[in-house]
């Protein structure tokens, strides 16, 4: 009816969109602008701000801990992403067949997704525990050595990555399942006529057809990796020897333990920039691979 009463609609449209405008100005635009001011200042929230120019960025480039936290995030991503994609693909392909109790299986894989990361982390901290943990109890029953899951600098981050995979994989199973159900059955029938094997069909039909889902999974797990916080916060506090210090945990510590608001804002700005670059690279490299 927009055409018959354009003016009326115009006014009502503004009124109904108003909540978002207020929300955007207050909680999006203002913080973004303030953040751009903050990165050039030294500020402990109590004393007046002090202009330091590019000082925060100079400090950031020389801050070994910042680079360490970035490196830790990449260790996490390198283990988490491939593991997540492989496990999710395998489970999704199994669930996509005609099997009994499919709903039950789907619901079980999905259960950790809905449960708070706090619960999962507290639980896994006990599973990983050196002396009383379930994993080491299992290993010693099989006469194997106990593993220092969270106390070794080499293993702590991979252990967290494994836990995160366990927690999130159900979501990716569901995403892949949706993707699989969108592949036309005729493609497989045509391949059958050509005498293609199951493996060939998987790599030449299933994988390429899942490309949009794959990119979504890749980006979502990358964003997840860069926002890793509560897991190291509870499990290790960033240790041992800062080997599980994540980007967000480091920003959080700078801002709320040391009150280095300007520096923390600069760190956040840098991390956001890096996330953007990584996501763009992922997009570009994956899309050309398929459509070339």
């Amino acid at each position, binding site marked *: 009816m927009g055409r018959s009463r354009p003016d009326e609609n115009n006014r009502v449209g503004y009124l109904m969109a108003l909540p978002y405008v207020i929300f955007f100005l207050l909680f999006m635009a203002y*913080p973004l602008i303030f953040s751009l001011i903050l990165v050039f200042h030294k500020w402990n929230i109590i004393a007046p701000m002090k202009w330091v120019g590019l000082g925060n960025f100079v400090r950031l480039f020389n801050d070994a801990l910042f680079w360490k936290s970035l490196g830790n995030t990449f260790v996490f991503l390198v283990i988490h992403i491939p593991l997540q994609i492989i496990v999710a693909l395998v489970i999704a392909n199994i669930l996509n067949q005609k099997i009994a109790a499919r709903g039950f299986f789907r619901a079980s894989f999905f259960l950790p997704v809905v449960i708070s990361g706090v619960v999962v982390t507290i639980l896994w901290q006990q599973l990983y525990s050196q002396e009383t943990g379930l994993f080491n109890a299992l290993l010693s*029953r099989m006469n194997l050595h106990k593993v220092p899951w969270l106390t070794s600098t080499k293993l702590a981050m991979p252990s967290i990555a494994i836990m995160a995979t366990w927690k999130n994989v*159900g979501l990716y199973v569901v995403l892949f399942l949706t993707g699989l159900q969108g592949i036309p059955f005729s493609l497989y029938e045509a391949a059958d006529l050509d005498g293609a094997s199951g493996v060939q069909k998987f790599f030449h039909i299933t994988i390429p057809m899942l490309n949009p889902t794959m990119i979504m999974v890749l980006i979502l797990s990358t964003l997840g990796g860069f926002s890793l916080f509560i897991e190291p916060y509870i499990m290790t506090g960033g240790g041992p020897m800062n080997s599980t210090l994540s980007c967000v945990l480091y920003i959080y510590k700078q801002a709320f333990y040391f009150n280095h608001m300007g520096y923390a804002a600069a760190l956040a700005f840098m991390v956001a920039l890096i996330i953007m670059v990584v996501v763009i690279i992922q997009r570009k490299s994956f899309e050309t691979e398929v459509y070339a």
Partner: protein
Amino acid sequence: MKKAIFYIVLLIVALAFIYPFIWMVSASLRPEIEISDLSPISSKFSISNYKAVLEKIPIVRAFFNSLFVSCSITLSVLIFSSMVGYALSRLTFKGRDTMFTIILFTMMIPFQITMIPLYVLMVKFGWTDTYAALIVPGMISAFGILLFRQYFKAIPQAIIDAARIDGCSDLGILFRIVWPNSIPALITVAIITFMNTWNGVLWPLIVIRKQNIMTMPQMVTLFAVGGQAELIGVQLASATMLAAPVVIIYCIFQRYFIASMARTGLKG
């Protein structure tokens, strides 16, 4: 035979996702010396660990805080996001397309970058240690707006025209005509919003320091990190109490949960 092996393997994999939770509940009911037992069965089950949690921290209060915050945010997101979604899909006004682009843009901004200035804003408003800090910044969601806009577009114009001829205002149309025709979208937004708020812990850790305003995940986190639990069983009891409400809701609405998350690809 081959089929039997297939199902056994699948069942073992499924158990790998469920068993840790069963073990957690069982361990929280066991005495400390039995904590590393693999089996969930014990002859000495007791609720003493739960009593200890209730004595050490005001977790019941935290539960109601979380419930209040999550319900307020969910309700508000449903109302305001659907209003904006309606305006964007069903009304014409100048700047509508610009607004849509801005909303898409804000979804790409990581929380890391707005977290600190947002905290500063809360300090300026004097909202730290209040429910306002937990609720107000979450009252509208870009994801909700986009989902509603998408869904409302598909509603036949004839229904809306009919209501308008009957003298219905746009707000009336939204709540009396559009809402009843958009139940799946409402459920999706409600589930995702409620879950994200209930499970969210970083923002409460930043703006709340007073124990009587803390949300449940925040309190359980600090309980675990602070070493106040002393016993592993007590810590697991607090985690079980945090998980219980979501697990119960999940068991009832399991189908909706999975469908919602599949539709959006968003996670908690």
